[in-house]
């Protein structure tokens, strides 16, 4: 093209003007291609790629490639997102997604059913505007979401809903809903059964014990029958103890909330328990006492007494006459602590986590011989739970064990006056 312009210029004698016109034409031509390229980019979906020739074709091909890759990824993400939502929709649990201010962004069919949500109409509405139960509002606003919230719902028939808030992303939350009516009912039935069964067993047992006592006191009794009768009385007493403990446990379970309680003089309580141990016909040689006499524990005195008595009783039973028991009560920054240490046979490490289960035996022979009910530590655990306290068990086999109760600081107060 430039050659043609040069020739024309030489012929007409106007070389610079001819060259300038040629360059201008060139630029205009390229510019028109640029416009066509731009038009195609804007309306890509309506027309195929333009044939522009030269380097332009490479650019067009490159754009097409990028575009295709982008569309492929987009489709993949859309499919993936749809599959995820379909999968969540099929979950047997209700799922509600919430944004940072608690507005509903999405929910599945089960959640719609459980909460009585409408369709799309409810997207964007704050969940606490629809689920207005004060317990839920406090739970949603509160910081502790480690455990689900149980709500009683249903008008005529009783229904229970478990709600669990799980934070994710930046301030978003996932609300997991489950209908736990059946589980709650079974749990209630179990508790009621244990309470009723123990209660019903007690009356016949009282009759049996009564007759055994009368017969044993009978002078005309054949002396050969004395040992079996004594054994029967011992077993009847043990059965009464088990039933008594079962009743205590079911009473503790029925009262779910934590106790407020009054100040308890733990030092005096431990001193009394120590005297009771020393009054036994067979007792460990040494029972030491180390207490803070000026600190009081806030709690239910009867319950705390039964927990400490169980721990001391265990220690006394498993410690030989040559052994030692140490009772301690002290207060520090973390709260109040009460420990019972013995020099008994100790507990195998594998058994420690299961120790507070009902009727759990470290080995079948040992505790039956000592006549425990198998419920003592379960009672201790329940009492401590109701006081917000924990039980720590440390033990070395053949050396002894230490049971420590840790009470939170808010349960400890100084004695009024000089104690």
């Amino acid at each position: 093209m430039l050659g043609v312009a040069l020739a024309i210029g030489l012929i007409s004698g106007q070389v610079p003007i001819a060259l300038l016109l040629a360059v201008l034409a060139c630029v205009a031509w390229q510019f028109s291609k640029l416009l066509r390229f731009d038009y195609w980019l804007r309306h890509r979906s309506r027309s195929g790629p333009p044939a522009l020739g030269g380097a332009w074709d490479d650019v067009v091909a490159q754009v097409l490639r990028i575009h295709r890759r982008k569309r492929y990824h987009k489709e993949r993400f859309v499919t993936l997102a749809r599959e995820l939502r379909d999968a969540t929709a099929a979950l047997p649990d209700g799922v509600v997604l919430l944004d940072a201010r608690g507005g509903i962004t999405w929910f599945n069919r089960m959640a719609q059913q459980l909460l009585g949500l409408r369709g799309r109409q409810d997207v964007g509405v704050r969940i606490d505007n629809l689920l207005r139960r004060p317990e839920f509002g406090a739970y949603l606003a509160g910081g502790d979401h480690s455990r689900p919230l149980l709500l009683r719902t249903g008008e005529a028939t009783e229904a229970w809903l478990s709600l669990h808030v799980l934070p994710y992303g930046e301030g978003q939350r996932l609300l997991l809903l489950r209908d736990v009516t059946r589980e709650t009912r079974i749990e209630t039935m179990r508790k009621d059964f244990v309470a009723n069964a123990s209660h019903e067993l007690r009356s016949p047992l009282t009759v049996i014990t009564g007759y055994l006592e009368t017969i044993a006191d009978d002078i005309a009794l054949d002396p050969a029958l004395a040992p079996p009768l004594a054994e029967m009385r011992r077993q009847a007493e043990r059965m009464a103890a088990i039933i008594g403990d079962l009743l205590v446990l079911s009473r503790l379970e029925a009262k779910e909330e934590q106790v407020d309680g009054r100040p308890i003089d733990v030092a005096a309580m431990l001193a009394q328990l120590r005297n009771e141990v020393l009054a036994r016909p067979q007792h460990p040689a040494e029972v030491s006492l180390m207490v803070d006499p000026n600190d009081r524990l806030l709690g239910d005195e009867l319950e705390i007494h039964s927990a400490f008595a169980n721990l001391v009783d265990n220690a006394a039973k498993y410690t030989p006459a040559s052994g030692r028991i140490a009772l301690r009560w002290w207060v520090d920054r973390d709260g109040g602590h009460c420990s019972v240490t013995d020099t008994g046979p100790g507990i195998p490490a594998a058994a420690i986590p299961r120790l507070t289960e009902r009727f759990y035996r470290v080995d079948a022979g040992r505790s039956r011989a000592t006549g425990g009910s198998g419920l003592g530590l379960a009672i201790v655990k329940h009492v401590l739970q109701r006081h917000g306290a924990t039980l720590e068990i440390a033990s070395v086999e053949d050396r002894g064990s230490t049971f420590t109760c840790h009470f939170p600081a808010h349960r400890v107060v100084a004695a009024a006056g000089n104690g």
Partner: protein
Amino acid sequence: MIETMESSARSQHISSRFDEDLESVRARLLRMGGLVEEQLRRSLAALADADRALAGDVVRHDGEVNRMEVEIDGECLRILATRAPAAVDLRLIVAIIKAITDLERIGDEARKIAHIALRLAALEHPVDRYRELRHLGRLVERMVHEALDAFARLDVEAALQVPQDDLQVDEEYESIQRQCMTFMMEDPRQVRRMLDVTWAARALERVGDHAKNIAEYVVYMVHGQDIRHTRLEEIEARLRSRSGGERP
């Protein structure tokens, strides 16, 4: 040019904070509604189960409802004074100011029912656990729930359903009254108990009226139509003509 952009950004910022204020005061109204619903539910449970502890609990919590009313009222006045809202925003604030009064009254009725439950718990508990009152209670509870749901969703159709339910509540109330009168004539020793049952039914009937009011504020808020003291058919006709026959 730059200046106007900046000022429009600022006004947008202000209006979004304004929206937040409105949103938060509405959420507080609904939280108060939740508390009132709970009070009503618990007072009815105390009545049905002769649960004195629960009844005492309801009486103690009434102060909380009143406190919330005062708080929300103050917040609404602050918004009116500082933001001077217009049109739909103004109607929202007005509706909230009216609704909290009704909610507070529902709370008062719940407290009354709890007092009655305390008195009735001292008497022998009937085998049917006051079936008629429980039935009326459920109807009324549902009305309050639906009125508040309509408030949360700005759902006019659901709100219009509430006055319909009120007709049924009135019928139930009258039938309880008649029944109580019959019992009183049959056995004068029952007069005390029956008077209390009548009072409880009366309280529930009042709760239904307040729920109806709240539902009417929803219609006012969304359409700017005052439908109080208007017959139901007329309301529907009016709303239908407004929406230009779009609705079937």
